């Protein structure tokens, strides 16, 4: 009755991914370009930072002609960096083997994590154009650079090197990779290449980026920070982040140490006090803690694990997260275009879902968005470990948080449950050694309640800072309006009265003077309020200067015309009573009830 059973064969991960490239960023020809550049740039930046080098990255996108496939062009993409270069043996691993990585599961805030992305790009090039990646590499130990083609042996998930040759390359070290792929270029829009490039410069103040796209001229965006970020080392795992199976498996990494020692050394936040508590609560005996890990039974592990889950432990350390910093953001934000004013917030690292997370926000008001910008939705830029996320934004934690903020409180227009309107850029950066993406193509960060709340707080603080500027603008407009009113209506009112009572010219003159005094006094009051607002802004500027060492671009204009000061940054505010304290709200209500 039963047929012969088909043989079971093992496929390599390369086979899996090559069949499922849509899951790792190649679901369309337009995304193919973006993914290719993104993976190459991510690797370049990671390598530079790892090596403590200030990155200088160039990107070239060239159209070679029509592709074989309909709806696509043959596109050449070349990404070069001044990083440490790859030892020649590593080239095929990095470009030609899936899940080969120096970073896999290490719990650090690097952009790349798992060693899939760039191998997928090579696969895409192979599939669409029958040729892998052309790599040039030079480390500082090599006298000449090596050029070769790397391909994926899909059947065996192994890198293959072809056409290796030695060449001269006029730089001490670096890496260049060139892909020829079927793809289609989208320049503008949220999912466009420019959004990616701008986003990358925003969250990487230390990056000098050059790019040449099709027939356009080279563009250079110089770095605004001379410090390469220090990527913190990973910390030991926190027991509350583990599952039982992982816990037991973890013990095997430590060989013949005693259980007690293993617990203290192998985990964060397990102290002698914790061990005492385990004994007191009968989750472990003294004897067990003295036993070798190898000798512990499964039952032992289960009990200790249960005990640790119930123990009150300090939250995990947040030392392992990397911060861009307010200073860097403040400088970098100026590279986005003509910035009218902006605010930046760098939260303290915190724990969400038992994992360390750091959230940073920059909001900038742009002056070059043209007519109608006030009615358009603000631009939201999302970053995960300093990589721009450009797709599927609606389900993302960062989008949800931004939509949940009541931006009207800060003087912005906002449709219900939506992003605010106006020529604003809202950049949200989430950095964590353990970002939970919703899918393998890393486009959306899973929206856990804790993470959304943390993001929301950062956005609220940035909104509060921003509102100081907006408030000052309103005060200026108000003063202006008051002056206009007086000039316009005063004489009309006095003249009308004079005609009705048939008054003489002298009375008119006197009344006009009286009126000017009266209303001038009031305008004076508004001027005083404006002054006060300016003093606040000045103080904020001062502080910014102390933090960053620079003043925003329009510094000179600022000195000449203090009423139009341009930037602020501040220390992290306490959140207590935040909503109540907000004064801009009150101010707006008053403004509304007037003038009717």
């Amino acid at each position, binding site marked *: 009755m039963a047929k012969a059973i088909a043989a079971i064969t093992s496929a390599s991960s390369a086979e899996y991914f090559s069949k499922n490239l849509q899951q790792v960023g190649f679901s369309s020809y337009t995304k193919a370009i973006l993914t290719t550049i993104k993976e190459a740039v991510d690797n370049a930046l990671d390598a530079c930072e790892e090596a403590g080098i200030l990155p200088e990255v160039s990107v070239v996108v060239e159209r070679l002609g029509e592709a074989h496939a309909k709806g696509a062009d043959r596109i050449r993409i070349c990404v070069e960096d001044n990083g440490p270069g790859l030892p020649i043996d590593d080239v095929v691993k990095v470009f030609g083997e899936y899940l080969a990585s120096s970073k896999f599961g290490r719990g650090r805030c690097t952009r790349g994590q798992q060693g899939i992305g760039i191998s997928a790009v090579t696969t895409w090039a192979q599939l669409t154009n029958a040729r892998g990646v052309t790599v040039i590499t030079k480390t500082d130990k090599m006298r000449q650079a090596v050029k070769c083609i790397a391909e994926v042996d899909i059947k065996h998930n192994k890198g293959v090197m072809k056409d290796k040759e030695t060449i001269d390359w006029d730089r001490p070290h670096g890496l260049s990779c060139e892909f020829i792929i079927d793809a289609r270029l989208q320049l503008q829009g949220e999912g466009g290449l420019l959004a990616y490039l701008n986003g990358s410069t925003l969250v990487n103040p230390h990056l000098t980026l050059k790019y040449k796209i099709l027939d356009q001229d080279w563009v250079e965006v110089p770095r605004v920070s001379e410090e390469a970020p220090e990527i913190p080392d990973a910390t030991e795992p926190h027991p509350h982040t583990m599952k039982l199976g992982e816990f037991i498996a973890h013990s095997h990494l430590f060989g013949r140490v005693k259980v007690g020692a293993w617990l203290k050394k192998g985990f964060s936040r397990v102290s002698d006090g914790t061990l005492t508590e385990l004994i007191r609560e009968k989750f472990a005996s003294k004897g067990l803690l003295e036993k070798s890990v190898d000798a512990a039974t499964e039952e032992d592990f289960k009990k200790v694990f249960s005990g640790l889950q119930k123990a009150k432990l300090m939250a995990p350390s947040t030392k392992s997260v990397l911060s861009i910093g307010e200073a860097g953001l403040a400088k970098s934000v100026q590279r986005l275009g003509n910035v009218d004013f902006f605010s930046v917030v760098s939260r303290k690292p915190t724990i969400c879902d038992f994992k360390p997370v750091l959230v940073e926000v920059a909001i900038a008001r742009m002056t070059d968005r043209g007519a109608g910008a006030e009615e358009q939705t603000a631009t939201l830029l999302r970053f995960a470990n300093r990589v721009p996320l450009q797709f599927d934004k609606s389900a993302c934690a960062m989008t949800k948080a931004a939509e949940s903020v009541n931006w009207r409180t800060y003087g912005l227009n906002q449709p219900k449950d939506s992003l605010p309107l106006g020529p604003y850029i809202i950049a949200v950066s989430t950095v964590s050694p353990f970002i939970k993406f919703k899918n393998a193509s890393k486009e959306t960060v899973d929206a856990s309640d804790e993470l959304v709340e943390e993001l929301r707080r950062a956005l609220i603080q940035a909104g509060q800072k921003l509102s100081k500027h907006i408030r000052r603008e309103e005060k200026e407009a108000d003063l202006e309006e008051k002056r206009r*009113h007086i000039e316009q209506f005063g004489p009309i*009112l006095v003249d*009308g009265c004079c005609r009705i009572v048939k008054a003489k010219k002298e009375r008119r003159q006197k009344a006009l*003077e*009286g009126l000017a005094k*009266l209303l001038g006094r009031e305008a004076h009051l508004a001027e005083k309020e404006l002054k006060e607002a300016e003093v606040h802004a000045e103080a904020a500027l001062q502080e910014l200067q102390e933090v960053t060492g620079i003043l925003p671009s329009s510094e000179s204009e600022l000195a000449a015309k203090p009423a139009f000061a341009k930037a602020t940054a501040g220390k992290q505010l306490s959140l207590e009573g935040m909503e109540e304290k907000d004064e801009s709200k009150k101010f707006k209500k008053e403004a509304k009830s007037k003038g009717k």
Partner: protein
Amino acid sequence: MSGRIDIKGISVEMCERLLRDLERAKRPTLEATKCTLDNAEYNPKVGYLTPGNKKVITELNVSSVQKMSRAIFILELLLRNLEVGATNTKREIYYISKGEVKHNPALKPLDFTDQNESDEIIDFICEMLECYREDVNCFANDRGGQTYSQQLVVVETMPDGSKATIDLSKLGTAPFQPKNRPQDLKLKARKKIDFCLIVESEGTANTLVNSGFTRRHPCILLGAQGVPSNAVRGWTKLIQDQLDIPCYFFGDLDAYTMQNIFRTLKAGSAGSLIRNSDFSAPEVRFLGVLPEDIKRYDLPDYAVRENDVSESRALKKARDALDNDPFFKDKKNKGVSDILNWLLKNKRRCEQQAYFSVNPRDPLMPEKIIMEKIKNKNFV
């Protein structure tokens, strides 16, 4: 009417005060009577809503300077009209102001962007001067009040002193149409007049007259055409005061009629606190449809559609009225507020034309019911 109060004098005085304050760099203020329900008082002996002590005080400041300038500007236009005896509608005033601005660019800042804005200023002026709109020669459309009678004679004294005498029985089937200002009219009765009947629906008033109501009964019959206009209110007041006859209002049994139509006719409205003395007839009684009529005459009634916006708003307003409206709160008007309570409780309504269903073969049945109710004092 134009001589009722000295508009010119009051205006000059007000401007003089304003100017004097300005000369002394003192902040001038304008005072206006607050014309809202919370400033309405009801004295059962007076019988209509009168203004309380609340004033709206506008102090000259940056925010109010526009409104004040506009008020003085429009006031000047109105004073000019009074001087030459010209009258205008609100819309015409709006266009006259447009013309002024066109001819004098210095006035550009005053320019109204739509008629609402100038209407608001006209109302503001009336509240400041404590006068009627008609006092400043600004008139609304004449609406409603078409009156039929075989006994009534109206004598109008014209501006030139001549008199026009109108015998309503001599107009054929045509009605007498009162104007929006309680003109200098003298009412006389050729024969004894028993009562005056004000019918909510103009059409039903017509039907009654056509079927011979005014021929059979010595009375005055007039149609209100919904919420009574100033013409209807002033005219009813004249009939009540000069002829000293009972006045009955015949309308629908619903919250809107009770509050917006009957209350306004009998005691005026909160918005016209200043004018109510001349524009309300406190002796008017509500003849029906009374709640008990539904049973007595087996009338077809309807459930209030609570998901209908306007009907549910009327109910909500009724609830407010019982709590806050001094007219409904006064025990003198208990009969009327009992009806409001009944409406709120039962959520039913009944239209005045329902009387036509009582005996559909007898066109005179509604007339008979009305007369029976008057005879039996079956009204509130």
